């Protein structure tokens, strides 16, 4: 079969990938820089082809609760937003995690805090990988650094969410959402039938047939002894995800004396930094975490025995650098370089920062 290649924005790739994956529903609310996701879905009218439901909700709060409801019936449902809207969704995300429901969330990050700016940023790292809403929970976090990965991570995100009955999030930023690249389109898959859903998700609220116990989707448990057991179960699941689902990419790491660590659009810029540094004779490598949670701590700890220093390059004031330092545990120098509030660094700025902070 010949590959179907198209040129499109990262946001459009998310929309097309969702239809092709066989997603059952998308619920969203417009916010820059990700409105093309909802716009593309509305233009594509998937309800006429695959039967996918697309709805513009009255708010981000309503949208995430629609996702909670749809996920509660075992459907493959998703929402997308950008930073301020994702903040609004945190209550719902916590409920979804607490009820152990699978779903896909997309955050195309912009600069904050507050209403901030519509320009790209990576300042929601903490919010995404450390919780965001209330309670002890984790989101499976995928950080795409290309339009291709925007498309591919829709399927991967849904698959991981359903594998672990846990929400997954694509943590992109305004650059990845808005830039155009060619994409090898994922294949069309049929939506799950009701029979398949009932077989795969026996917990789903699909209407109680005679003879089965009622299914209740809830995160509520007033008995603290049982609530502690629930939390212990969640934590065991999170340890399993940490064990099995870490993903990262290495770029010129083999002989590296220094390492850049960057995700998403920052990693794209850092590829150029590595090339420029090597042209000057500096053995620089790039490690790109693809999953931000679970974080690739083990491989970073291994590199701490091989390289002289690491620079965490992020479009924020220094967030992922804390996880790198935890992994490195003081063995070598770990510094941070970033630009804030929607400003994007140039390769030259990154290389200059590396020399200033680590050499």
């Amino acid at each position, binding site marked *: 079969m010949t590959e179907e290649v198209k040129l499109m924005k990262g946001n459009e790739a998310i929309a097309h990938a969702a239809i092709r994956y066989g997603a059952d529903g998308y619920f969203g609310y417009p916010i820059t820089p990700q409105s093309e996701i909802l716009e593309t879905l509305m233009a594509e009218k998937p309800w006429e082809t695959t039967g996918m*439901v697309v709805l513009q909700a009255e708010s981000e709060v*309503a949208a995430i*609760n629609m996702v909670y409801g749809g996920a509660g*019936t075992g*459907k493959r449902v998703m929402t997308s937003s950008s930073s301020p809207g994702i903040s609004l969704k945190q209550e719902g995300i916590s409920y979804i995690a607490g009820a152990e429901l699978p779903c896909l969330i997309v955050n195309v990050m912009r600069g904050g805090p507050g209403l901030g700016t519509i320009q790209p940023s990576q300042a929601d790292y903490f919010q995404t990988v450390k919780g965001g809403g209330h309670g002890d929970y984790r989101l499976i976090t995928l950080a795409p650094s290309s339009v291709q990965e925007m498309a591919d991570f829709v399927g991967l995100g849904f698959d991981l969410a359903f594998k672990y009955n846990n929400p997954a999030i694509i943590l992109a930023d305004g650059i990845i959402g808005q830039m155009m690249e060619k994409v090898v389109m994922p294949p069309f898959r049929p939506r799950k039938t009701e029979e398949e859903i009932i077989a795969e998700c026996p917990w789903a609220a*699909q209407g109680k047939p005679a003879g089965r116990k009622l*299914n209740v*989707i*809830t995160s509520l448990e007033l008995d603290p002894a049982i609530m502690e057991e629930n939390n212990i179960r969640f934590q065991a699941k999170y340890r399993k995800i940490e064990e099995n689902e870490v993903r990262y990419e290495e770029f010129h790491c083999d002989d590296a004396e220094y390492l850049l660590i960057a995700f998403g659009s920052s990693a794209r810029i850092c590829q150029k930094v590595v090339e420029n540094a090597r042209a000057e004779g500096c053995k620089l490598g790039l490690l790109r975490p693809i999953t931000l949670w679970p974080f690739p701590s083990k491989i970073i700890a291994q590199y701490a025995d091989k390289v002289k220093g690491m620079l965490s390059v992020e479009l924020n004031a220094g967030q992922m650098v804390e996880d790198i330092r935890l992994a490195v545990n003081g063995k070598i120098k770990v510094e941070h370089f970033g630009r804030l509030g929607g400003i994007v660094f140039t390769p030259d700025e990154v290389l200059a920062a590396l020399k200033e902070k680590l050499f």
Partner: protein
Amino acid sequence: MELNEIIKPENLVYEKPRLMNENPMHYCPGCSHGVIHKLIAEVIAEMGMEDKTIGISPVGCAVFAYNYLDIDWIEAAHGRAPAIATAVKRLNPSKMVFTYQGDGDLAAIGTAETIHAANRGENIVIVFVNNAIYGMTGGQMAPTTLEGMPTSTCPYGRNIALNGYPLKIGDLLAQLEGTCLVTRQSVQTAAAVRKAKKMLRKAFENSMAGKGTSIVEFVSTCSSGWKMTPEKANKWMEENMFPFYPLGDLKNKE
């Protein structure tokens, strides 16, 4: 007459609805929730829809509705039940979907979700229990608390200058094109219960006929929150709640 003579099916005058389970209810004596639960259980069973019904329970006294009715449930965050019901029904159009919400849940924190689900004409039933108080958290002021009515957060009575007016959200919802039935009922007498059940059945039938959003408001008592005996609470409701929230159909589109 012997007992086995008496319990013959032809002598049956009343039975516990099939869909109500054996769990002891946590509701206070005299509370309207128990009767409303019973009516929902009866209507679902009489329609033969128990295997196709998904209930959305609220945050408030009825948060544990899923402990009493033997159907599938999704327990909502405070106020968000209509958004959840929207997705459940759109993704599963052959299912019968209802929310069960109190006045704080529906008319304060969830006002946006309520109005927009109704305005879209979602094919769902919204069961609205209006007892003019927050029962679960211990008797605080609700959006529907009457003027002058004391609660723990308006201990000297609801003061319009301070707290604004009680919200007649039923009247507001009746104005929306998306609603097909908005009716205000009560369950303090046998006659009221019979009438309420009829309207509840109509609401569920509307949802399956794709007619739009049906809202059944139950003007109710909260004897614990109101600090009255159940009997006195019923009388107080008739004398004070009914004049402000008059019973009857606010809208009933055929």
